[in-house]
């Protein structure tokens, strides 16, 4: 990829002829009115999606025959770039003649395929793919309005990458099954993050709820936890609480307090309890210089936990009381 990426800026020359043609002469732009609906014998639906402050808005007009839910006519208006206009135009065209249910199955990927000149060459460059997402969203909006239901009931759950419509589950599975280590690999396997890259990490084109870097880190951590050999039955956990407390105090004296004392700090055991997930929760309080020290909530705590885990039981989790 490097050779082709070094000279950047290529955008419009990657548009298909169909995209350019529809940008110049959209076939389905304009408004539909109540009078049009009456003339055609259907119900008028007007759906808005996006905000001008985000750079893209689209309005979709449908006339739907209520007896069989067929979309008799569809037009649009758009405030957006060439890709947004061309893909909305194609989307409106694809709605015509379909039922409302069929139309909600149209995705931005279908629209992009329909705009291709040849089957194997994308109609728009990767970073423009997100401009077609609005075309997909607005159909859901129109269908929700028509059916008078919450739009959430029509949307896919947990979509991480809107451009390629990849769900959280698909990404997690791909990481696990193929043992993926980088976001580039995720893009190669799932297409997630291959287009506008907003979902790769914070700070991209638009804000997202989930980012690939975070998903990858979490799944990798889960995987390494799962792959570490199962510990033998934990004898420490079988002991009485009194014996556990004595053993923890002994461990604190031997391994931990001397270290903290060097910095003028100290630590006291507050409580010991079994957590719902089977781990043993050890609650502690800091004394002296450790109190309120920024390091004590991160570095020191993990040092304490690691020492207790090594000496007594891997099931121990240490928290500040």
């Amino acid at each position, binding site marked *: 990829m490097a050779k082709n990426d070094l000279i950047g800026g290529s*955008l*419009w020359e990657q548009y298909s002829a169909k995209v350019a043609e529809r*940008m*110049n002469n*959209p076939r389905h*732009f304009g408004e539909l009115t109540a009078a049009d609906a009456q003339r055609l014998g259907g119900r008028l639906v007007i759906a*808005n999606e996006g905000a*001008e*402050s*985000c*750079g*893209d*808005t*689209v*309005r979709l007009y449908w006339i739907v025959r209520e007896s069989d839910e067929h979309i008799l006519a569809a037009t649009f*208006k*758009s*405030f*957006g*770039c*060439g*890709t*947004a*206009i061309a893909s909305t135009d194609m989307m409106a065209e694809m709605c015509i003649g379909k039922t409302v249910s069929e139309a909600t199955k149209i995705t931005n990927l279908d629209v992009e395929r329909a705009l291709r000149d040849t089957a194997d060459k994308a109609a728009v*460059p990767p*970073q*423009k793919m997100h*401009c077609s997402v609005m075309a997909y969203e607005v159909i859901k909006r129109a269908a929700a309005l028509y059916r008078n239901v919450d739009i959430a009931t029509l949307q896919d759950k947990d979509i991480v990458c809107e451009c390629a419509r990849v769900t959280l589950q698909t990404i997690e599975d791909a990481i696990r099954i193929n043992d993926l280590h980088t976001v580039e690999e995720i893009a190669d396997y799932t297409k997630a993050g291959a287009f*506008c890259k907003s979902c790769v990490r914070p700070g*991209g*084109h*638009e804000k997202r709820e989930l980012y690939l870097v975070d998903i990858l880190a979490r799944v990798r951590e889960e995987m390494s936890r799962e792959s570490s050999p199962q510990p033998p039955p934990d004898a420490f956990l079988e002991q009485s609480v009194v014996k556990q407390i004595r053993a923890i105090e002994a461990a604190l004296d031997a391994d931990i307090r001397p270290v903290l004392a060097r910095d003028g700090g100290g630590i006291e055991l507050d409580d010991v309890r079994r957590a719902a997930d089977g781990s043993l929760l050890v609650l502690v309080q800091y004394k002296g210089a450790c109190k309120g020290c920024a390091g004590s909530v991160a570095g020191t705590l993990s040092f304490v936990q690691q020492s207790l885990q090594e000496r007594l039981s891997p099931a121990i989790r240490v928290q500040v009381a």
Partner: protein
Amino acid sequence: MERIYLDNNATTLVDPAVREAMEPFYCHMYGNPNSLHSFGIEVRPYLNRAMEQLYAGIEADDEDNIIVNSCATEGNNTVILGMYFSLLKETRKKRIVTTQLEHPSIREACRFLENHGVKVTYLAPDSRGLVTAESVAEALSDQTALVSVMWANNETGLLQPMKEIAAVCRERGVYLHTDAVQAIGKVPVSVREVPVDFLTFSAHKFHGPKGVGGLYLRKGVVLPPLLHGGEQMGGHRAGTVDVAGLVGMGQAMELAVTALDYENLVVRRLRDKLEDALLRHADVLVIGERELRTPNTVYASIRGVEGEALIWDLNQAGIAASTGSACASESLEASPILTAIGADRELAHTGVRLSLSRFTTEQEIDTTIAVLDRAIVRLRQLSTSY
């Protein structure tokens, strides 16, 4: 199709006279100016002449240095990183004051230094789009090592009050750098009139070749080189000098300075004509007062018309313009200058920048006005918001 180029703040055509001046240094006088033999000897007078042209162009003193380099990005990085190694890293001077309007080569270099313990203040412009000398003065402390303010803004053409800012920096004993890339050839730039310590420029913005630029260093100012190596440029910048590039830049500078009156009269009149035509449409906002801008630039927000869609339509008619916030750009945030002058976020996506040059003709402007009128009407018909 006859094309019209109105994106001169991005780059310019090489003046044919500049190209002619460069031509001999490719296949005939191709010697390395550092060579002792005749091939080296014969090119040096031409380089000396080019240096004269550069010094005269910005009214530099013979005791000052103008380091010839590859571009303004290199010049800007040389200043910011150089200040780090000469002052910020090991003295108690730990601060840089700059603005939110700067080119990425200043902004990102400053961000980089922030990772190394330098504190950077990014000043916001006022409601006219200006960073005032008072706001610079307020931001200074005895820890401030450097102030960096661009002379003219690339997006809007807005000119910053460099003279007043220079007076403040002089008085407070703080180094001042200015990125004058968009100012040279558009307005008079004199380091005698405006006593900056560092000034960067780039040949391709004033009808010179791409890949060659300059960094002015006031006499006595110490700055370690960015590129280490040979003794070229008096040890300030290693690397064999781009002979043809320097000859071209010198010629381009002389021509640009000579053409300043033309720029201020004719180019300004054409720009104003174009601007007036835009303003005949309802709901058009031009950023910055005319007198506060370079004479060649107009940046307009046209409500209901998405910027990239507009430059698409212009391009279909063979007209090259630019948009402030492309749909595919990294961030959806409005540019600071738009926010500062009170334009709302919606307008951030409706911006188009038209930048003229001394090669722009009246006929080109008339054609552009007609095409713009059609495009605005068409895109507003399509638009959800108009």
